């Protein structure tokens, strides 16, 4: 087993029982390998979560370039704080918590608001920021019953939701996380998540009235 230079001697995380949790969840097993300094585990972790995190952050921040930056930051944070992960919780919840925090921080930055205003005055061709439309080829007929036009309208409607509603909706409906996990990722309660989802779906149904 090759070891990362910053890793300490192999040991399980405090209070962790690698055998039971790792045996049932391969993600947890992978993260335990990262904690123990296995150099080959982190690229595997990136390959497993990178595409999902990139897509999630892209939909949250509505910019491909910033989504890529944040995705990098997410994995650097995962590495730096790897000792804080406890196998009692799902790895995906922990990873999405980091991604959500970084993405929402990005959305709160004042210079981002300024940039959006600047882009709004430009022509559509010059726009590099703003709502990112989906790749039409990414949705195949087998994967979704929706047409390309409907998928585009849906992505645009999601992009217009407030950030927290958007995050809750994406985690719950697209990534299929339970309310409890969504609440953990957003640092909120299940009741608040229910309210966010109700408002989000209500808005989407209004905006997609012609398609539903």
């Amino acid at each position: 087993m090759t070891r990362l230079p910053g890793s300490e001697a192999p040991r399980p995380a405090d209070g962790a029982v690698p055998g039971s949790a790792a045996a049932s969840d391969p993600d947890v097993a992978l993260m335990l390998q990262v904690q123990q300094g296995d150099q080959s585990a982190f690229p595997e972790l990136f390959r497993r979560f990178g595409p999902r995190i990139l897509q999630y952050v892209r939909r949250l921040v509505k910019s491909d370039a910033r989504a890529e930056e944040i995705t990098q930051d997410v994995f650097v944070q995962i590495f730096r704080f790897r000792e804080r992960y406890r196998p009692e919780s799902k790895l995906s919840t922990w990873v999405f918590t980091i991604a959500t925090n970084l993405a929402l921080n990005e959305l709160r930055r004042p210079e981002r608001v300024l940039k959006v205003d600047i882009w709004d005055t430009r022509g559509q061709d010059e726009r590099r920021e703003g709502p990112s439309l989906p790749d039409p080829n990414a949705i195949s007929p087998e994967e979704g019953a929706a047409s390309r036009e409907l998928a585009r309208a849906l992505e645009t409607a999601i992009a217009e939701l407030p950030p927290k509603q958007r995050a809750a909706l994406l985690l719950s409906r697209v990534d299929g996380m339970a309310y409890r996990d969504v609440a953990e990722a957003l640092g909120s309660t299940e009741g608040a998540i229910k309210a966010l989802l109700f408002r989000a779906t209500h808005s989407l149904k209004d905006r997609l009235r012609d398609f539903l």
Partner: protein
Amino acid sequence: MRCGRAQRWMTAAVDAELGGWRAQALERHLADCAECRQEQDRSERLDALLAGLPLDTPVSTQLEQDTLRRVRIAAADEAERPARFRLPTWITAPVLAAAAVLAVAVGVTRMSPTTTAGPAPEAPGVVPPVASVPAPAPRLAKAPPPRTADRAAAADVAPPEPVETPRVDPPPSDPSRRPDLPSEPPPELASAPDLFMDLNLLRNMEKLQHYDAIETTTLHEQDGEPPNG
């Protein structure tokens, strides 16, 4: 059940997060209310659309390489950092915040007027320079004389020997003289110094420059304006 509540519960029902008597009550309401049934159908169609959205997006090789390179740099940084500077994992942000609050509270307590009513406590470790003078006899029920008078009396008895204290050099201002820093940058830094720049720092620098530019512009314009009156 009212339609408003039924529609709130529909969201949870679609997510399979509604159970027990609530699910049964919603079923009963939907059986009687055509409008809510229609809303439920729309909710289910929307859910199907959302579930059909692509869960992930292809990650470019460049992004993967950049990310893993940053992780390797972070790992190398950890390896170079002395172990004594690493905080234990149980020291998290709340613990640090609580410690800071406690430190401030202790400082405020020590500086509050209630504690300064009596004689000011001496700082620990401060030894007066007249330690060779024999101690005066203890006088009960009388306050000790002020320290300056005490020193003057001691000077009458025997002039204090000049005590040669070891000279303590101030910390070197030149960072290259600090012993805990390497004399040369690590090879990774020497080959690609831009990789070591903190992105947040750069963002803050951009912000500062932006605000500085605004302020400069405003001052300049104000200078060009004629004075009032």
